[in-house]
């Protein structure tokens, strides 16, 4: 019953090939097949947002897609934002400064949503930031630190997510 397909995906700029079960989820393709474990699974029913990645530039829930559906796509995950932990992006640096994360489990998905949101609206006000984050659940922070991080990022005029 395990049908397989060959797929090719560009992940964080790198072309990758894989033979996958047709039922393999996109999230498991990233986490298990490609060992990109920065994308997390919080609910596996599309509500918590922890598994959010960019698919052809749009923020999507990787738990709700199958690997075969992303054949030929361009994918960006949290691992693709900064070259390494010593060189954070300006937005990531503001998350540190404003204590925008605690356990950090939901954070990668949030960063990916913000990457798309700030590209589309580089100067959001607080209401718009909260609206952009509304598809994510965080149980640790009460969101205030991450909202402040985004607002500081916008204020400092570094623009976009980079």
């Amino acid at each position, binding site marked *: 019953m395990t049908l397989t397909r060959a797929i090719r995906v560009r992940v964080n700029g790198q072309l990758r090939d894989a033979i996958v*079960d047709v*039922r*393999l989820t996109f999230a498991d393709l990233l*986490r298990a097949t490609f*060992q*990109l*474990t*920065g*994308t*997390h*699974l*919080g*609910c*596996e*029913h599309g*509500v*918590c947002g*922890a598994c959010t990645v960019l698919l052809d530039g749009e923020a999507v829930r990787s738990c709700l897609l199958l690997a075969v559906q992303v054949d030929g796509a361009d994918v960006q*995950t*949290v*691992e693709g*934002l*900064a070259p*390494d*932990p*010593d060189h*954070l992006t300006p937005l*990531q640096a503001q*998350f*540190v*400064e404003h*204590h925008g*994360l*605690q*356990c*950090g*489990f*939901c*954070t*990668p998905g949030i*960063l990916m949503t913000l990457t798309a949101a700030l590209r589309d609206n580089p100067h959001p006000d607080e209401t718009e*930031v*909260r*609206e952009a*984050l*509304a*598809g*994510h*659940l*965080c*149980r*640790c*922070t*009460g*969101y*205030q*630190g*991450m*909202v402040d991080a985004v607002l500081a990022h916008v204020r400092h005029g570094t623009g976009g997510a980079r």
Partner: protein
Amino acid sequence: MSPPRFVGAPVTRREDARLLTGRATFVDDLNIPGVVHAAFVRSPHAHARIKRVDVSRARAMPGVLAVIAGHDLDLPPLLLRMGSPIPGTELRAAPRLALPRDKVRHVGEAVAVVVGESRYLAEDARDAIVVEYEMLPPVVSPAAGVAPNAPLVWDELGDNIAAHIVQRVGDPDAAFAAAPHVLRETFRIVRGGGHSMEGRGLVARYDGTLDSFTVWDATQMPHAVRNTLAILFGMPEDRIRVISPPDIGGGFGPKGGFYPEEAVVPWLARALGRPVKWIEDRHEHFTSAAQERVQVHETAIAFDGDGKLLALRNVFLHDTGVSGILVTPLITSCTVPGPYRIRNIHTEFRAVYTTLQPTGAVRGAGRPQATFVMERMMDRMAEHLGLDPAEVRARNLIQPDEFPYDVGLIFRDSARQVYDSGNYPELLRRALEEIDYRGARAEQGALRARGRYRGIGIALCVEGVGFGPFEGAVMRLNARGRVVVSESAPPQGQGYQTTFAQIAADAVGVRLEDVDVVTGDTAAVPFGTGSFASRVMANAGPAVLQAGRVLRERILSLAGFLLEAAPADLEIEDGRVHVRGAPMRSVSLVEVARLGNVGRGFGFSLPAGVQPGLETSSYFAPPQAGYSSSIHACVLDVDPVTGVVEIVRYVVGHDCGTLLNPLIVEGQILGGVAHGLSNALYEEAVFDEGGQPLAASYLDYVLPSAREMPRVRVFHLESPSPLNPLGVKGAGEAGTLPVTAAVAGAVEDALRPFRVRINSVPLNPSRISDLVHGQ
């Protein structure tokens, strides 16, 4: 000692960079060679006899390594006898098998387990297992559990009472009989879960050569897991290493304790000779992780015409679920009196088994219920006497000169409930100022005239935190001249790697960047208790401080030998030890470590009096709990038509003693408020009359997002605790405690024209609509 450089500073977290870049290591990220995956078959019924488990089809399926049901699992029952803090009482509990053989006792109870080469294959086989049940009547509330002829959850016990504890202070009966005013109310508090964004999970590996286990477990209590496994497997604890991964995706209580999966997964790893991983999915979290909070309180207060409390009587039922802990309702019973001077108290509870999923502690652990009960009564007293709710609170607060203040009860740490320090009147004064209480009251009438229903709520609480028994720290200087701090308790987002580095750097006198922190590994610190009850900083903090001071002495003693100087004349600076006033006479910490940990050369004798081994361990056991305090004040609008509550202003005042890292403490408070607000307005674990969970996904069980959360203003008081050398208490749960009370008070205040009575939460739109329409 020089003044602290790092303790007290808002140091940004060293954990953040790896978490922000996707380089963290959560338990499901571990890539253990040869690992196979477990999937559990779970009961669809709340209460049923297991007639037959047919695994034959599942065993024959591709990629399946094992299918195990109760009769296949040769482990002794999980029976964790924990003494009661209250003499003469106990938690009555029956032996519980990790996989039951006779009957299931809640929806979601694990009945069998499949191990497959992948989680996909394991779940395929899981669906091929047939379990035949004979239905039994469920017990879905504590009231049903104590009803005559109630079905028995645990036949062996003869009834469903898990515990019955009464504590009395003064002469409450006489005080009630003589009091000019008495008010009585019934309060109902509903179930909620932890809902860490990462579920539970573990990987177990068995090494047959050494007859030893390594278990990576996203637990709040690695030492308790290790100790329990040692008993279950009949092994010395030294051959079981339990590691809480450095990154755990939140805990909030339900990752504490010991679950059946934590016994079954290591058993499978040994039986199969393969590492076995199990990761809880969200549905499993909804049905098998511990929940908390269901209580029904019958509360009475006696008071005089000036609003002075004379006596308190609080009797409640606590839903223990299929299994639970004694301390949660005990904490409730002790927390009710709060910051108020009450000389006559009767507090009593019965904890009752039900056929609902296990209970334990969820952020607050019994305290939010207590705060709700007491603060609702304070509002009712104010209303009864026609006094301002802030004023009646002020008239009853314990004053700063009354510490240590003995409440008269025994707290859950088995010590007398003696408040160590605080300044409750100042908390109240400052909160009223920050929320602009007078302004809010003044505009309330005008707004109401315009059809806008604005309410103001205040709630205070005192929170027993930071109790023992102990935590430990092991500290050493390694060959690279770095201070390595191993500390027993594991973090779930609280920033231990940062805070303990601050304490250690100050104690040893090195730079922050010279310190590495290891947490939650039983091989690094052999004994420990765990992260729960806002207790780690008051236990592990002083342990790290003590170890750091000893390590500093050792470093200076060895450096003194190398520099031919008295240790008292030495200073540590920028990775080197030098003679004060003569910076050229110095040695590096690397050289000191070489002398202390390697020697001058192989076979060379050390000079007399020079102690080798730059390593020390330290344990700290506080004599009793410390007592943090807080106040929440909120101003909100209620739309009586839509039932929507909109928070206008929210202020938190908090006193957890000395602030070690204000940035992190504030984060703890803000997260706690979100959890409390979720309890106040949104979340409820609903079960039907058959014990089926009706809210077992995030579509039905609502958690707030950034859009729902208001901006929260936090201020701190610092009343140092005299119970430990850091003066610290605890902050992890404080933000959650008074929220339901403050919000309920404000909503009732807003809807006063409708004469609503709010004795339960959550106040979701349909509930508010019901209240407005008198239902």
